[in-house]
């Protein structure tokens, strides 16, 4: 019991100490105006100092999308390096910060909380579940973010810029292509293999819309990312008598499905979403089947496109990362970085590098182009920035493993399609 008085003293002392600590508040968190105007007359916000602009990348280097994440990250680092080499933006150099969340929502949310207060833009964010989880916060923070996912659920936020087409628009253009060029007629059944989740289900919205308008039937097969062997799905498609198959799953599932179907003598065309193909598949036994009658719908240009910008990018990328595979992630990442770069430049012209300034500058561009491919309209955010899809085809000899089969075009169906905004 002789402890007691001393305990009280200690507790009192502790409380006093606490009060002192709080009141004196040496904390850096103490309120201060975030937006300020620098010496050069440019208004700045979080992530922008007198000589530096911080650009965040939230990517997946160790999870299921590691190969895509690596290409995108390296391509973007290449872009900002070139940008800095050419003098930077607004007399400031761009500094990139990369965080790998391994496709884990908790790590992604943690990475966002860490980087958001000190970044001016997010040049790419992999994983729509992660972006969806943070959508409200991204909007409240007014942090321009380019997701590397194309689900419709990501539309509708002013701060989030989905690049080019969404999955559903791609699939509408794909169904249109099947009808116009692959002999699919009214009354036919088309199979659609899709992933559970926003990617597959966005794509399914598109195929269902197109099927309804064209008088086709859709035969659905939903799978999970852990499913590897598509034999059962092929059997089901076969028994439903499908005349063509749409694929909105991962590259592995696409390879398995196409491989099994072709080996079982199903001679139908296959049309995949842009995430349903990877050039690495051409080194596997599935290659011959993929080269036969498989097409991929994508809003971004493939690396083999005969465009000066892409050819230069391919050469620069090869020079910087000689041992790495070149895939569609390189062009997708690079053009997203270009979008960011241009938004920063425009914001600089308006002398406003605050978050609001960057978004306003970005959203002011009605007809943005990377110097190739389709033109994108950034002034609306409840619509895809473009409705033109490339049709590309796997090709062993081509850089990035695919060549353009048809130049980007928008089908009449896709033009009038009311996008469900999530």
């Amino acid at each position, binding site marked *: 019991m002789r402890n007691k008085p001393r305990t009280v003293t200690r507790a009192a002392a502790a409380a006093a100490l606490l009060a002192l600590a709080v009141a004196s508040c040496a904390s850096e968190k103490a309120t201060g105006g975030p937006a300020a105007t620098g010496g050069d007359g440019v208004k700045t916000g979080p992530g922008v100092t007198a000589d530096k602009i911080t650009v965040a*990348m939230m990517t997946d280097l160790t999870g299921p999308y590691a190969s895509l994440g690596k290409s995108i990250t390296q391509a973007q680092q290449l872009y900002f390096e070139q940008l800095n080499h050419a003098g930077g933006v607004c007399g400031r150099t761009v500094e990139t910060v990369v965080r790998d969340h391994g496709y884990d929502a908790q790590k992604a*949310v*943690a990475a966002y909380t*860490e980087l958001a*207060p000190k970044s001016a833009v997010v040049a790419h964010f992999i994983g729509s579940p992660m972006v969806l989880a943070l959508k409200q916060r991204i909007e409240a923070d007014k942090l321009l973010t380019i997701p590397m996912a194309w689900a419709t659920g990501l539309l509708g936020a002013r701060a989030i810029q989905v690049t080019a087409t969404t999955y559903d628009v791609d699939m509408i253009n794909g169904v249109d292509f099947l009808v116009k060029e692959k002999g699919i007629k009214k009354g036919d059944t088309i199979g659609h293999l899709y992933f559970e989740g926003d990617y597959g289900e966005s794509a399914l919205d598109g195929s269902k819309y197109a099927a309804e308008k064209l008088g086709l039937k859709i035969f659905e097969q939903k799978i999970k990312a852990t499913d590897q062997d598509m034999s059962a799905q092929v059997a089901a498609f076969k028994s439903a008598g499908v005349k063509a198959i749409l694929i909105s799953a991962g590259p592995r599932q696409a390879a398995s499905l196409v491989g099994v179907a072709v080996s079982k003598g199903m001679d139908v065309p296959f049309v995949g979403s842009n995430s349903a193909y990877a050039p690495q598949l051409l080194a596997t036994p599935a290659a011959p089947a993929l080269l036969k009658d498989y097409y991929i719908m994508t809003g971004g240009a493939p690396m083999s496109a005969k465009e000066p910008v892409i050819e230069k990018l391919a050469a620069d990328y090869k020079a910087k990362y000689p041992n790495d595979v070149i895939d569609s992630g390189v062009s997708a990442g690079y053009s997203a970085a270009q979008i960011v770069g241009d938004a920063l430049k425009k914001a600089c012209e308006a002398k406003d590098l605050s978050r609001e300034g960057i978004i306003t500058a970005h959203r002011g561009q009605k007809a943005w182009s990377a110097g190739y491919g389709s033109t994108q309209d950034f002034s609306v955010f409840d619509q895809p920035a473009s409705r033109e899809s490339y049709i590309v085809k796997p090709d062993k000899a081509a850089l990035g493993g695919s060549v353009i089969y048809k130049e980007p075009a928008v089908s009449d169906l896709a033009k009038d399609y009311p996008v469900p905004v999530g």
Partner: protein
Amino acid sequence: MSRVILWAAGAVLAVAVPFYLEGFWLQAGLFAMAACVGAIGINLLTGATGQLSLGHAFFLAIGAYAYVYFAAEPEGDLGGLGLPTPLAALLALVAAGLAGGAFSPIAGRLRGAYLGIATLALIYLGQHLLFNAEPLTGGYNGRAVPPMELFGFVFADTPELVIFNVPFGALERLWFLGLAVVLVAAWFARGVLRGRPGRAMNTIRDHEIAAAVIGVPVGRYRAGVFVLSSMYAGAAGVLLALVFQQTVPEYFGILLSLDYLAMIVIGGLGSVAGAVIGAIFVSLLPQLLTRYSEALPLVAEPGSGGVSPAEAARILYGAAVVAVVLFLPGGLLGLAARIRATVTRRVPPPSLTPSPDSPRS
């Protein structure tokens, strides 16, 4: 006496943290707090009673989603009851407990490895429900989590609140809620473990038949602990949902369950302190490595090749599990106790009054 100073210092530190640390650390701390609550729960089940469960993530999901359903106003296709949030949180605990109870016909019949793998079914079933029961769960989009409101005080960024010049956003406010939840959870579990139920549970773990012989109602205890542990998971789920502000169905998968098992092994099986230490270790390690990857040898910056921070964290975490069972029986907690024992043997104790609970804990 030294214990009191320690507690006071701890309390001061815990209260001062939100005034100084940036959002990233607060959030990491909140994730760790949620993990503490969940880990205490599974330590009651797996550590103290010896029932292996791989289904913990499922009960976390129940807690998180039930809270959202009870608290949210119905909106479009999404259902909701719009109840006051504290009530919704309580009901979420009840829901998680009921889910655990519904599993008891299986939990009561199966032993050891069989129970462990049977609980795997919960994970797969749970994810299937989260994705498909859209009116309840919002499907793959998840649902926005209504902020907690206690006696008119909202745990969210708005309305703005500034205390001693420090802006108090959602994370700063939730910090205190999290602390309170962890303290209550720890205090209650400690009571369970130190009392009669705790001894009964340990006996079941060590020798089930013997436990039955000496009159422990084995079946009832096993089912009861399962329910209690599910409720802890439910509480962790509610806390997580509040921190995330949006439910993410992908999150509640098998890896989350495995994380919880690793936490209790690393921290120390069968005790509250062990669960807390393990939870902190496992949830903060990747954050620390990522944050300081530039300064650490052998760890490459992400995107530059080499061992990335995420990989380094995985490797260290796997190695920690292995190292603990090889060299540190009792986990990190056991290590701490051994160090304390070594120190106190050299230094004579400062006070003659024995503190009531020094030999254990």
